[in-house]
C-alpha cells in the first residue's frame, strides 16, 4: 500500500507507452483507435483521483530520492488535471499523430511529477529534461527544423542548468535539497555560489520561456501543432518553474544570491510579455506572450522568498498550466492570423468561450484563475515591500488585458470569415463530443479555480510550507 502513491506516475507512463506502441504497431482496429483520446483522458482522470486520494499520505521513496509531500501533491494534481483537459480539448484532426500527440503530454506531465517529487538535484534535472524532450518530439512531428532549434536551445539551457547544479553540489557537498539548505544556512552569500546560481537560473529561464530568454521557445511553439504549442508554452515551462521553486526553497537562507536576478527577469517578463501581447494581433503569438507575462508573475512570487509568495506562485502556476497548455489546443488550426478567428463566438461558441477565458486568465483579468493567482502574488510582493515590481506587474497585466480585449472583439463582435475565403490555415476546429466536453470542462476549471479556490489555495500554501518556508 505504501507505493500506491506512485500509482499515478505508473498509470501515466504505462499509458504513454501503450499508446505509442499501439500507434507504432497498429494494434488497435480503426474504430477502437477513434476512442483513444477519450480513453486517455479517462485514465488520466483516474490517475488524478488516485493522486488526490492517496497522495495526501506524506512519505519518501527509493531511499529518499522521491518525496511525497503537499508540494508534490499540488504540482502533480495540477499537471494531471492539465493533461486530462488538454487531451480532451484538442482538435485531433489538426494534430499530426494521434498516438504521439497523446503520449507526449503524458510524458511531459510525468516529467513535472518527477521534478515535483524530487528530493535531490538529479531528480530535478531528470524531470526537467523529460518534459523538455516531450516538447521537442511534438514540434518535430510538424517542423523538424524548428524541433532542431528547440533541441539546440534546450541543450544550451540544459548545459547551463547542469553546470549550475554541479557548482551548487561542489559548493555544498550535498546533492540533496534538504542537505543543501542545511549547509547553506550556515554560510554567508558568496560570489562563488552566486555565479553558478545565475547560470542555473538562466538555464531554467530559457526552459520556462521567461523574457528575455523566451525567443527560442516562442518561435518554435508558433510553428508547432496546437497541442505541441501548448506543450512548449505550458507544461515545459511548468516543469522549469517547478524546478525553480524547489531550488529557490533550497537556497532560501541566502536569498541575496538569486532574488535580484529573479526580480529583474520577472519585471522584464511581466511588462515585456504584456507589451508584446498588445503589439501582436494573431491569436497564437498573443497567447504565447500572455503566457510569458504570467510566468513573470510566477517568478515575482518566487523572488519574495516567503511562504506566502511561493504559495501564491504555486497557486498561479496551477492556473498557468491549465490556461497556457489548453489555450493553443482550444485555438486549434486557426493559424491564419486574426481573420481565422473572426466571429468564432458565433461559429464555435464553446471553443471561443474557452479561448477567451484562457486568454483572460493568462492576462490576469477578473474573475478568473489567473486574477486570483496574480493578486495572491501581488499581496506577497506588497508584504515584502517590492512595490516597484508590483507596479510593473500591474502595468503588464493592464497591457495584457488590453490585448485580450482586442481578441474578444474579434471573437464576438467581428463577423465570421466567408467560407470561400477560409483556407486551410483558417480552418475551423472540428466539433466532436470530446472536444466540446473538453472545452466545457476547461471553462469550468478556469472559472472555478479561483472562485472556489479555498481548498486549492490552502493546498498551495501547504505546498510552500512543505518546502520549509516561513
Amino acid at each position: 500500500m505504501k507505493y500506491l502513491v506512485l500509482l499515478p506516475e505508473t498509470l501515466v507512463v504505462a499509458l504513454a507507452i501503450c499508446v505509442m506502441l499501439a500507434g507504432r504497431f497498429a494494434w488497435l482496429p480503426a474504430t477502437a483507435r477513434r476512442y483513444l483520446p477519450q480513453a486517455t483522458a479517462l485514465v488520466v482522470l483516474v490517475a488524478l483521483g488516485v493522486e488526490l486520494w492517496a497522495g495526501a499520505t506524506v512519505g519518501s521513496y527509493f531511499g529518499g530520492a522521491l518525496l511525497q509531500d503537499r508540494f508534490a501533491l499540488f504540482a502533480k494534481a495540477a499537471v494531471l488535471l492539465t493533461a486530462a483537459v488538454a487531451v480532451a480539448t484538442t482538435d485531433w484532426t489538426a494534430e499530426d499523430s494521434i498516438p504521439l500527440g497523446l503520449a507526449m503530454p503524458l510524458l511531459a506531465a510525468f516529467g513535472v511529477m518527477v521534478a515535483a517529487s524530487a528530493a535531490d538535484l538529479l531528480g530535478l534535472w531528470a524531470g526537467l529534461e523529460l518534459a523538455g524532450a516531450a516538447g521537442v518530439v511534438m514540434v518535430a512531428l510538424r517542423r523538424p527544423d524548428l524541433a532542431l532549434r528547440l533541441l539546440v536551445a534546450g541543450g544550451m539551457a540544459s548545459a547551463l542548468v547542469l553546470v549550475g547544479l554541479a557548482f551548487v553540489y561542489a559548493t555544498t557537498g550535498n546533492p540533496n535539497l534538504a542537505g543543501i539548505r542545511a549547509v547553506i544556512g550556515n554560510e554567508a552569500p558568496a560570489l562563488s555560489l552566486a555565479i553558478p546560481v545565475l547560470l542555473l537560473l538562466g538555464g531554467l529561464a530559457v526552459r520556462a520561456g521567461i523574457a528575455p530568454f523566451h525567443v527560442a521557445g516562442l518561435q518554435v511553439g508558433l510553428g508547432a501543432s496546437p497541442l505541441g504549442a501548448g506543450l512548449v508554452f505550458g507544461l515545459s515551462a511548468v516543469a522549469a518553474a517547478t524546478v525553480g521553486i524547489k531550488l529557490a526553497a533550497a537556497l532560501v537562507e541566502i536569498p541575496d544570491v538569486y532574488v535580484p536576478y529573479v526580480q529583474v527577469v520577472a519585471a522584464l517578463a511581466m511588462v515585456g510579455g504584456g507589451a508584446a501581447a498588445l503589439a501582436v494581433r494573431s491569436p497564437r503569438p498573443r497567447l504565447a506572450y500572455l503566457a510569458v507575462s504570467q510566468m513573470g508573475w510566477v517568478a515575482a512570487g518566487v523572488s519574495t522568498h516567503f511562504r506566502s509568495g511561493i504559495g501564491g506562485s504555486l497557486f498561479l502556476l496551477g492556473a498557468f498550466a491549465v490556461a497556457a497548455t489548453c489555450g493553443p489546443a482550444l485555438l486549434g488550426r486557426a493559424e491564419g492570423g486574426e481573420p481565422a478567428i473572426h466571429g468564432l463566438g458565433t461559429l464555435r461558441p464553446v471553443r471561443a468561450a474557452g479561448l477567451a477565458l484562457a486568454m483572460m486568465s493568462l492576462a490576469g483579468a477578473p474573475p478568473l484563475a489567473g486574477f486570483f493567482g496574480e493578486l495572491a502574488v501581488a499581496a506577497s510582493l506588497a508584504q515584502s515591500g517590492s512595490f516597484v515590481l508590483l507596479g510593473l506587474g500591474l502595468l503588464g497585466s493592464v497591457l495584457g488585458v488590453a490585448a485580450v480585449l482586442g481578441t474578444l472583439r474579434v471573437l464576438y463582435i467581428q463577423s465570421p470569415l466567408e467560407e470561400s475565403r477560409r483556407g486551410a490555415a483558417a480552418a475551423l476546429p472540428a466539433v466532436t463530443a470530446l472536444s466540446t466536453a473538453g472545452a466545457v470542462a476547461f471553462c469550468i476549471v478556469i472559472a472555478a479555480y479561483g472562485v472556489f479556490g479555498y481548498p486549492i489555495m490552502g493546498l498551495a500554501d501547504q505546498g510552500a510550507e512543505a518546502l520549509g518556508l516561513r
Partner: protein
Amino acid sequence: MTMLAAIVQASPTPLPAPGAGVFTSPFLLSLLVWVPVVMAVAIAFMPNPRGRYDVLMKQIAFFTILGLMFILFIAYNQFQNFLPTMQYEEKVAWLPAIGVTYHLGIDGPGIVMLLLSGLIGIASVLASLGVRERVRAYFCLLLLTQASVNGAIVARDMFVFILFWAAAAIPLALLVLGWGGPRRSTAAWRLLGYWGLGTGALVVGVLALYSIAGGQSFDMDVLLKASLSPRNQIVISVAMIIAAATRLPLFPLHGWVRDVLAEAPVGVAVIVAGATTRLGAFLLLRTVIAAEPAAGHLLSPVLAALAAMTVGYAGLAALRTVDIRHMAAYLAMVPGGITVLGLAAVSPLGIAGSVLSMFTGGLAAALIAGVCATLSERAQSRSLSVLSGLAPRMPNIAWLLIIAALALLGIPILASFTAEVMTFFGAFKNQPIGAFAVAVGLAVSAVALAMLLRRVLFGSPNPDAPGVSDGSLGETWYLGLLAGGLLWVGLFPGGPKIPGTDFPLFDPGLLNQMTAGISDIASPYVAPTPGATQ
C-alpha cells in the same frame, strides 16, 4: 434647514419605516450581484437561430433588472436607518490563506448607491431596446456590468471590491468597442488605459494597506480600522485618490470621458455616466474620508482643488465644443466635482451632502448624457451648428433636456438642489476657496447650459438640418425615469407621509435611509481640531 440639522445629528433617530427589519434574507445582497451574472450566462448560451429570440433576450435583460429593482426596493424599505452598522451582511471565508472573505454589507451610503445602480440599470436597458446587432452579446455584457457595479457597492472586503471594480472595465470597453460610434476604438482604449491606471493605483493602495495592517486580512473591518501613521495614511490615500479620479473622473485624469460618453451607445453612456463613475466617489468616501481621518484632513484642500478644477474645466470645455455629445460628456463631469467638494469639506453636513450628491449627480449625469445622445440620434446630427430650434419638433426631449440642465445646476424641486445646498453649506465652512472656485465653475457650466438650451431648443430652426422626430416611447420612459427619480427625491426627500402623521407611506425617504452610517463616517471630523492620528 431643520431637515439638514436633523441629518447632521451625531445620533440620528429617524422614525423607522413600519415593518423595517421584518424581511431578512441571508443572501439578499448576493442576489443583487449574482442574478445578473447567471442571467448573462443563460443569455450567452441560449439558442438563437438567425436572431429569432433577440426580443426575448431584451425582455430577459429588462425583467432581470426589474426583478433586481424589486429586491432592492424590499432592501431599501426594510433598511433600519437607526442602526449605524452594516446591514444584510454576508460573511463567508473565501481564500483564508491570504485572508480573503466573501464579505458583503451595506450602510446608508451603500443603499443610496444601490438604489442609483438599480434605477440606472433599468434606464440603461430601456435605452438599449433599439439595439439590433449582436443583441445576445450586448445584453450579456450589460448585465455583467450591472453585476460588477452592484458587487463593488456591496463589497466589504477589499479583495472582493478590487475584483468587481476591475471587472467593470472589461464589459464596458467591449460594449464601446462593439457598438460605439466612429471613434469607438480610441474611446475603448482610453477607457481601458485610464481605468487600468486607476485599478493599478487601487491595487497598490490596498496591498500597501494590507501589508501595513499585518497581511492577515483584506476585510474592510480590519483594513479600514487599522492604526496607521499619518505618513502611511497619506501615501495610501493618494493612491486611492488617483484610483477615484480616473473613475469619477476628476481633472486631470478625465481623458477618457469625452470619447467614451460621446462614442458609446446610449444605454452604455447612461450606465457609465450614472453608475460606474459614481464608484470613484464611493471609493473616496469609504477609504479616505471614513478610514484615514488624518489624511482626510491633510488632503482635503487637494480634493477641493481637484473638485474646482474639474467643475471649471468641464464648464469651459463645454463652452468651447461644437459637438452636443462632447458637451454632454463634459457637463456630466460637473456632479462628480460637487460630490468631491462635499467630501473635501470633511464635515458631517458636507459628507452627507456628498452622499446624496452621488445619487443625484449620477441621475443628473446619466440624464444629460442620455438626453443629448437621444437628441443627436433623433436629429441625425451631433453638430451644434446644425441643431437649432428643435423644441417645437421634439417636445418630450426638450422638456427632458431642460430638466437635465436644471438638475445639473441644482435648482429647487429637484433632488440635486438639496445635495448641492448641503455640500456648499458644508464646504464654505471648511474649504471656502475651493467652494468658491467650484461655484464659479458651476456658473460657467450654467452659461454653457444656457447656450445649449437657447441654441438647440429655442433658436431659429435650421432649414438645412436633417429630419427630426421626437423620442420614442422607450426613450421617453428611460429619460423620464431618470428625471422622475430626481423629482421624487427633490419633492419628498424624507418620503411621503400618511396625512396627519409622521409615518412614511411606502417610501421611508432617501434622506432618512442614507443617514445610517454617515454619523460614524463623519465622527472623526466633528471635533473642532483635527486629531493627529487615529
